[in-house]
Every structure is written in structure tokens, then in C-alpha cells.
């Protein structure tokens, strides 16, 4: 039975020397068969299992993770959550996720530390301001919150921004989304894991899926490093490894895997209370609750599974930071790391049936799938339980590459994932 976290329980455990806490989820051995098996114990896989149980009453479900829970991109990202996209299909998807995030801590009874501190995307010329106005208009028409800021309003949000006469990228204004923010990434994975476990979902770690059981042209389960597991339906949510598993299932995907890196500085006193992205440098940053400056940027340009990130991109990201915040030249950087992201030609995710019946896809989130974890899980659960699309996931089906109905967000909002 999952113990509720509350101020009262915390107080009581304090008096008892914290000896009564239970592990947040069990570590069961895999059963020979489930109604549904989800491959990948990242945020999307865990959320899928949770919503299968909660929304569709399916509890005979397993999540199979080759490493440890949240050890993929979910534990490596820079945690930005926003829905400032261009196309109605994208805003419907990402704003659905943002709305779910707004109630998630309470729903999961787990503190995911969601902080809606807002995101400002800064423009550096008259021409970029016109693009900014276009994106603000699109967001407002699509029913999400957006505001066009002038330069003074941008400096109010981030007073340390470079306003010197020699700025390579002067501040002309920007796009503001106030409901955007950041959350604790591990906590999102752990919260979903604990809540799914509470419904009876088996979370199996250190178990690698090595192949698929195919019967009569249908996916009937998975082969794993801990034996075969049969399943009524199988969901694939392995981010950067989608291509590897698709090959084992006998098809290819429109996905290229790249490294994406991030860096974090020593903690310093509070000096930045929003998320800032420069269109000019491609660098974005914010201050973590611990006081560290968290810095990220674009993809490495070399297709890779190395999960370490290469020095040229690191230099680009850091020089962007110095242009944006000259005073951050004082900061000591503490850590750099990379994740393995799955990039799709139109920069939008793939959610839908795969070419192998019985196997469903949730992938292609590229550099931006943390913000969408609640929606990705909800929509994949809908697919698995009903066998058909939710209206929000329909435009993201694999068939768009043949029909030509791409949702090209790189062209729409300049988001490159």
C-alpha cells in the first residue's frame, strides 16, 4: 500500500527517527505475461503506465527499463516546461501537458517542484520582433498565454542581461509565456513511478529488451535479458534508442539520434528568476532552486549515441552565455553532461501505431520531451487501451511522412528539435 506523503506523516516520522518510510516502489521480478508492457522507464514510459491504470483501469502492466528509472533523458534534461509553439496541433499537445503539470504534484502526491517562473525568448532586431509578434499571435489564437515584451520589460525580467553598447545581440524585446517554468526532473519520474506502483504496475529495472515476440504478424511480447514476457500490447518509449529497437522489430523510423548537452555552474545567490532564451545565441539558462546556473543550447551536429557531448557545442553554448550575461564570466562551471535525443525531420514527436501491429510508438521528442511527459503518457495510454488515436495525438501519427502533413515546428517556432 502506498503511504501518503503529508506534513503530518513527515512530522510523525521525525519523532520516530525516520524509521517508518517504505521504498517508493517495489522491485518485482517480471511476470511471464501482462496485458501491456511499456519499454523504457523514462518519464513517458512511467506516465503511460500510470495513465493506463488510472484512466483505463489496466493494472496488469509492466514498465521494462534496461538501466535505472529516469536514467535516460528524463534525468538529464534542463527541465524547461512551456507551450510556446506555432501550430495549433503542437499547442494542443504541449498545452495539454502544461495543464496536467499544473495539477501533477497534488495528483501524484509527490513534490515535483513545478515552478511557473515564466520563459522569455529574446529577439535582437526589428525583423526578429516581427517574428516574435507572429508567434505571440499564433499562441494567443491557439488559446495559450503569450505576451509581446519591449526591451524594458525584458530587462525587468532579467536585470543582468547584457545592455552594453557593444552587445553583439542587442535586446529589442521578446516573447513571454508566464505559465511556463521548470520542475524537478527526477521527481517527475519518481512521482509517476510511485503512483503507478501504487496501482499495481510492475516496474522492472536492469532488464533490457533485446527483441520482440512476433506471432501471426503481430507483436505478442518482448524478449529481455531476464526472459520472454508476453503482452497484449507493447508500448515503445525509449527516446534516443528508438532506432535500435525499431530495427529489432523490423522497421525503420524517420529518426536520427544526436547528443544534446547541458552544463551547470557552482551555486550563487539568487540573481535570475525566469528562464531566458536568446534567439541570437541559441543558448538558454535559468537558476536552479539550489542557486546553480543551468545552461543549455542546441544539438551537437554529429549523429551520436555517445551520450557525452562534444567540445565545439560546449564552446558555442558557453560563449552564448557570456554574451547574454557578461557578469556570468565569474562563474565556475561544475558539470557538463549529455543525453541521447531522437530527432525527427519536422521537429515534432511521433505518437501512434508502429508498422508492427500491437506495438505502439511514443518517440521523436528530440530536445523537448520533458515538458510533454504527462501528455505523452496520457496519449500513449489512450492508444494502447483503445487501439485508436486520441484527437490530440492524431496529427502526430507516423503516416504524416507519407501524406506530407508535417508539423514543422523548426519552421513555425524556430524550435530545432
Amino acid at each position: 500500500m502506498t503511504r501518503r506523503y503529508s506534513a503530518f506523516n513527515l512530522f510523525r516520522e521525525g519523532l520516530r527517527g525516520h524509521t517508518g518510510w517504505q521504498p517508493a516502489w517495489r522491485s518485482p521480478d517480471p511476470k511471464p505475461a501482462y496485458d501491456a508492457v511499456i519499454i523504457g522507464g523514462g518519464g513517458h514510459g512511467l506516465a503511460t503506465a500510470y495513465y493506463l491504470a488510472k484512466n483505463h483501469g489496466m493494472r496488469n502492466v509492466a514498465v521494462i527499463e534496461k538501466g535505472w528509472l529516469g536514467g535516460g533523458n528524463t534525468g538529464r534534461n534542463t527541465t524547461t516546461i512551456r507551450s510556446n509553439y506555432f501550430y495549433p496541433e503542437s499547442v494542443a499537445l504541449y498545452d495539454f501537458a502544461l495543464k496536467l503539470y499544473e495539477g501533477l504534484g497534488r495528483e501524484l502526491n509527490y513534490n515535483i517542484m513545478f515552478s511557473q517562473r515564466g520563459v522569455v525568448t529574446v529577439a535582437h532586431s526589428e525583423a526578429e520582433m516581427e517574428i516574435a509578434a507572429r508567434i505571440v499571435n499564433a499562441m494567443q489564437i491557439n488559446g495559450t498565454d503569450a505576451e509581446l515584451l519591449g526591451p524594458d520589460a525584458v530587462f525587468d525580467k532579467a536585470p543582468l542581461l547584457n545592455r552594453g553598447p557593444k552587445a553583439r545581440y542587442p535586446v529589442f524585446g521578446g516573447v513571454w509565456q508566464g505559465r511556463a517554468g521548470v520542475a524537478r526532473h527526477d521527481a517527475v519520474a519518481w512521482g509517476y513511478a510511485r503512483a503507478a506502483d501504487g496501482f499495481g504496475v510492475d516496474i522492472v529495472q536492469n532488464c533490457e529488451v533485446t527483441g520482440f515476440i512476433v506471432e501471426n504478424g503481430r507483436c505478442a511480447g518482448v524478449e529481455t535479458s531476464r526472459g520472454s514476457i508476453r503482452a497484449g500490447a507493447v508500448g515503445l518509449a525509449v527516446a534516443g534508442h528508438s532506432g535500435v529497437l525499431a530495427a529489432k522489430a523490423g522497421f525503420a523510423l524517420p529518426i536520427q539520434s544526436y547528443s544534446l548537452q547541458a552544463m551547470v555552474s557552482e551555486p550563487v545567490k539568487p540573481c535570475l528568476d525566469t528562464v531566458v532564451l536568446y534567439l541570437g545565441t541559441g543558448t538558454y539558462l535559468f537558476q536552479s532552486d539550489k542557486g546553480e546556473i543551468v545552461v543549455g543550447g542546441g544539438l551537437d551536429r554529429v549523429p551520436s549515441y555517445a551520450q557525452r557531448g562534444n567540445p565545439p557545442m560546449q564552446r558555442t553554448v558557453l560563449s552564448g552565455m557570456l554574451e547574454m550575461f557578461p557578469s556570468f564570466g565569474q562563474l565556475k562551471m561544475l558539470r557538463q553532461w549529455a543525453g541521447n535525443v531522437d530527432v525527427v525531420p519536422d521537429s515534432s514527436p511521433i505518437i501512434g501505431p508502429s508498422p508492427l501491429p500491437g506495438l505502439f510508438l511514443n518517440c521523436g521528442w528530440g530536445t523537448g520531451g520533458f515538458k510533454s511527459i504527462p501528455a505523452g503518457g496520457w496519449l500513449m495510454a489512450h492508444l494502447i487501451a483503445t487501439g485508436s488515436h486520441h484527437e490530440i495525438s492524431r496529427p502526430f501519427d507516423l503516416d504524416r511522412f507519407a501524406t506530407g502533413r508535417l508539423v514543422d515546428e523548426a519552421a513555425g517556432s524556430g524550435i530545432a528539435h
Partner: protein
Amino acid sequence: MQRFPCPFCGPRDETEFHFAAEAGKTRPEPAGEVGAERWAEYLHLKKNPKGPTREIWVHTTCGEFFLMERNTVTHEVVGSSALGAES
């Protein structure tokens, strides 16, 4: 910083190169008779292998496209050759 071997210019800084595509993709012909599924496959689908792979890169400095054999996990480059020279 890694160096990539351009078959025409020799080893150069990785920032001078751009990844173009997986090797071995040939345009389906005759184009007018090719269906949407086959076009989608040619234009978008990728093997995206984890490990040894053969790729087409462009050296942006000299403008030449060439074949590079590389490992996507270790980043080790095994070799590069001019297009058309490969078997």
C-alpha cells in the same frame, strides 16, 4: 575537438563538416511512378545504427561530399573516401 579526414583536404577540425545522410540511399526511379510510401521511405526513414555506420558528409570548406565510416558510440573514424570510389 575531433578531426575528420576530408579525402581532398586531409584531417580538419570537426566544425568544418556537416552530416548529410546515411550512405547507400538511392533515389527511387522512375520518379513519376514512385508512390507516397516509397518517397517517404527514401526521404525520411533512417537506419540510425548504434555502432559502425557509413555516412555521407560534406566538408563545408571545400564543398565536397564524401563517404565516411564511423562508429556512432565511440566516434572513432575508420576512414573516408571520395563518392563513387566506394564499392
